[in-house]
């Protein structure tokens, strides 16, 4: 035994871990050091006795990634993914926490349903699964969900994701209710009338292909309307999967005005534009759709400048046979947990501090996850990601149950070498 | 495979003489040139057929109809050979009941002629079909023989025989390339 007292953790036989040759990322800079993990805490920055020694060859070590937006499909759609397989995929992607979207069957609109998701996540044991709660019952947009029950079960982010809460009066009520508690209202911005019948971005490519398009306006108008309500209610507001440069401009303006507004962007919106749809491959079909090259550049700039706070995967698994149909018939969404970090590094080439901020610290703060997104320090929780920025690789096969990824066959830089959740190695790929 | 520089074995005058002789043989066999149709096989069979027709008009006074035939749609090797451009198939008269004399520049494996026989049969029912070639180089893969031959030229498989005709090429004559 190491002889060290580990505070705050149940008695487990968690082996102590020593990481050697680490580049520890902190807001004050990058420190070359070893790292010792004992129990569920960081013991110290330095060497010591340990049960497991891992040489990570100069890779970055920072707070474990937090995903604000994952579809784990359980309960109700387990053939696409379940909480166990989704957690495993998350760990492989360097995640120590996932916010699970509530568009399951049944929707997460009541306390016991939220607790089900939390318990399943705990059983799986790979990372912290935090359910988001629906704003309205069944996500039908008609009546408010059991917001208090959900809050009591630990839900802090509320969204009807998959759909937009279009009824301005109902949205206002939800905002007023949650503003009081400090909850976050997150919006999937897709105006139903403007988006009707659309399968891809409305523009030159959709016109050439003869596919009904989804105008950028469908996102902008919802954000604009929501921001007016935020001004009125003061609620913490989060724009999910933002995709338009115009939408980002609205967020910037709101932040400049001091409104409590945050935003997330997906890795695929940092990489691909609408010309990909010419392949007719549903691995390029999602909401929001892939937009113009100008929007892709706009998203990169906005993320770099902090107008967009966080990267969120919108991990949306679909079984292979569901996508073996024409583009217009295929379901929307692509997986993303296992490629997110590499995609972000390849697209932005960020400094390590910025990288961990957008992948971990900022999303943890938005989701109010206390034990997550904390910069490495002695005594801080051992939720860590070891990320090697050097190797190039091409994703081919995924740990998720589903394989619908736009990154298949795309050369990416950067690999998750290890993930540590509450002091346990949940993933390693050290060659 | 490296080849020797081409050796000319017939010049323009030799070719002309051979074609005139073939023209005479055709008229001899058919007691004149009534009921005879000359059909040149694309590409070089066509001008050769025209030259034979001119010769017959010269010494017999008969105008023999000349047709052209592209066998590109009848070949047995369409899978492997590139799809070269098709030439025109146009026989100006009905072939049924007439004697069709197919004309080609070089007779080799016989497959082109086999295709030509099928093609003409699809256009009608000739009373008979005959074959005239400028060069017979041997190596038949099918039981096909020429009725009229300009020159017999025993060759090996590695050699290449080239016929060039006025109008299509800059020169008129027959060349053979031997391997080193």
């Amino acid at each position, binding site marked *: 035994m190491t002889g060290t007292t580990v505070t705050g953790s149940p008695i487990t036989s968690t082996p102590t871990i020593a990481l050697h040759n680490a580049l520890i990322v902190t807001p004050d800079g990058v420190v070359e050091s070893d790292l010792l993990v004992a129990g569920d805490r960081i013991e110290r920055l330095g060497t010591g006795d340990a049960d497991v020694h891992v040489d990570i060859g100069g890779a970055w070590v920072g707070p474990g990634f937090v995903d604000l937006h994952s579809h784990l499909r359980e309960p109700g759609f387990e053939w696409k993914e379940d909480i166990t397989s989704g957690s495993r995929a998350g760990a492989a992607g360097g995640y120590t926490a996932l916010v699970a979207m509530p568009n399951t069957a049944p929707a997460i609109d009541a306390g016991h349903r939220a607790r089900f998701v939390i318990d399943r996540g705990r059983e799986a044991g790979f990372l912290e699964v935090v359910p988001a709660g629906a704003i309205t019952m069944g996500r039908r947009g008609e009546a408010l969900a059991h917001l208090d029950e959900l809050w009591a079960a630990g839900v802090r982010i509320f969204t009807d994701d998959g759909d937009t809460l279009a009824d301005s009066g109902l949205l206002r009520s939800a905002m007023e209710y949650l503003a009081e508690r400090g909850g976050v209202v997150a919006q999937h911005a897709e105006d139903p009338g403007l988006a009707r019948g659309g399968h891809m971005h409305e*523009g030159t*490519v959709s016109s050439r292909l*003869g596919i009904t398009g989804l105008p950028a306006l469908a996102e902008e108008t919802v954000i604009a309307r929501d921001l007016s309500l935020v001004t009125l209610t003061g609620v913490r507001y989060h724009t999910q999967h933002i995709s338009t440069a115009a939408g980002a401009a609205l967020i910037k303006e709101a932040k400049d005005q001091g409104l409590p507004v945050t935003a997330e962007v997906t890795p695929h919106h940092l990489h691909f534009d609408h010309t990909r749809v010419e392949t*007719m491959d549903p691995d390029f079909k999602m909401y929001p759709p892939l937009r113009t090259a100008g929007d892709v550049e706009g998203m990169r700039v906005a993320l770099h400048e902090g107008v967009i706070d966080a990267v969120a995967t919108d991990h949306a698994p679909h079984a292979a046979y569901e996508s*073996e149909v*024409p583009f*217009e018939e295929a379901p929307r969404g692509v997986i993303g947990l296992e490629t997110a970090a590499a995609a972000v590094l390849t697209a932005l080439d960020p400094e390590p501090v910025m990288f961990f901020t957008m992948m971990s610290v900022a999303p943890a703060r938005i989701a109010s996850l206390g034990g997550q997104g904390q910069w490495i320090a002695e005594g801080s929780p051992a939720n860590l990601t070891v990320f090697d920025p050097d190797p190039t690789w091409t994703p081919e096969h995924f740990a998720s149950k589903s394989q619908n990824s736009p990154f298949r066959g795309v050369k990416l830089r950067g690999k998750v070498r290890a993930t540590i959740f509450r002091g346990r190695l949940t993933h390693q790929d050290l060659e | 495979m490296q080849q020797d520089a081409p050796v000319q074995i017939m010049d323009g005058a030799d070719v002309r003489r051979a074609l005139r002789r073939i023209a005479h043989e055709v008229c001899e066999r058919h007691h004149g040139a009534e009921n005879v149709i000359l059909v040149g096989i694309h590409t070089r069979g066509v001008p050769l057929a025209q030259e034979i027709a001119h010769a017959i008009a010269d010494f017999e006074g008969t105008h023999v109809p000349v047709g052209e035939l592209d066998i590109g749609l*009848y070949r047995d090797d369409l899978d*492997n050979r590139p799809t070269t451009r098709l030439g025109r198939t146009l026989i100006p008269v009905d072939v049924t009941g007439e004697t069709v004399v197919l004309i080609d520049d070089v007779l080799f494996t016989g497959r082109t002629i086999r295709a030509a026989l*099928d093609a003409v049969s699809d256009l009608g029912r000739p009373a008979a079909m005959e074959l005239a070639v400028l060069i017979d180089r041997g190596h038949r893969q099918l039981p096909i023989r020429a009725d009229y031959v300009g020159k017999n030229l025993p060759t090996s498989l590695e050699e290449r025989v080239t016929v060039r005709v006025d109008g299509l090429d800059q020169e008129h004559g027959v060349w053979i390339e031997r391997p080193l």
Partner: protein
Amino acid sequence: MKHLLAIDQLDRPAIEEILDLADHFTEVLSRDIPKVPALRGATIATLFFEGSTRTRLSFEKAAKALSADVLNFTPSTSSLSKGESLKDTALTVQAMGTDLMVVRHAMVGAPHRVASWVDCSVINAGDGAHQHPTQALLDALTLRRHWGKLDGLRIAIVGDIRHSRVARSNIAAFTTLGATVTLVAPPTLLPEDVTDFGGTIASDFDEILPDLDVIYMLRIQLERGSGPVLPSLPEYVARFGLNRSRFERLPPEAVVMHPGPMNRGIEIDPAVADGARSLITAQVSNGVATRMAVLFRLLTGKAQP
């Protein structure tokens, strides 16, 4: 070339090669025995998930004139209605020894998806509002025969451009061959963004009439319903129909085309459709020779690209 999925796959020499082949096949079709053995032993399957007897028959005739065997798959009588997926249907048909599939589907990109699943060749016979390459080729052939060439021809395409795969394919084919194309339609029937589309827009049909060589009328798709895109049918006909008075204001050499089937008396006056300056019948008869050319081009010389 393994598949023909969209006209923009073909550059000018490639299109002209197919049109030249089509000329040869026209001669074959004029014979007493309109048949050649070129594709003997090949199996061609038609998979028409969207109804169209005329196009399917045209392909069938083309295949048979080349001595190929034909398999026809029609969804209403098949297991697709029992829920078999597009992919499984394609693989089943392929397993019967198919060398080439002709696919028509109501959804954009369906033939492309089929091409990604099978080893044999695929021809797009119409996918949603996207492309109908053989229609464009037979239309180009028709114009080439009438005018000698398409360079410099002033062509107007009139009608529901937004939902028309014929319009999209034809614009590409006509402009590649040197013609200029003007699109005439009300704003709600034009594509949302015409920046890359390849033609100029005119909303006043009458204004451009004296400067046209070819009027290509599209079928107004009544089964789509007017709904929010058209104010009313009579209004559309008044503004965009090719009636006799408009026809008379065309230059004397101008010709009229239509991909069929026509709504007589709606987008086109019946006398105009049947008149001497209509190429509509020629379009239909050129269809078989054009499709023979495409089948021949895709299934022979496989050793080369």
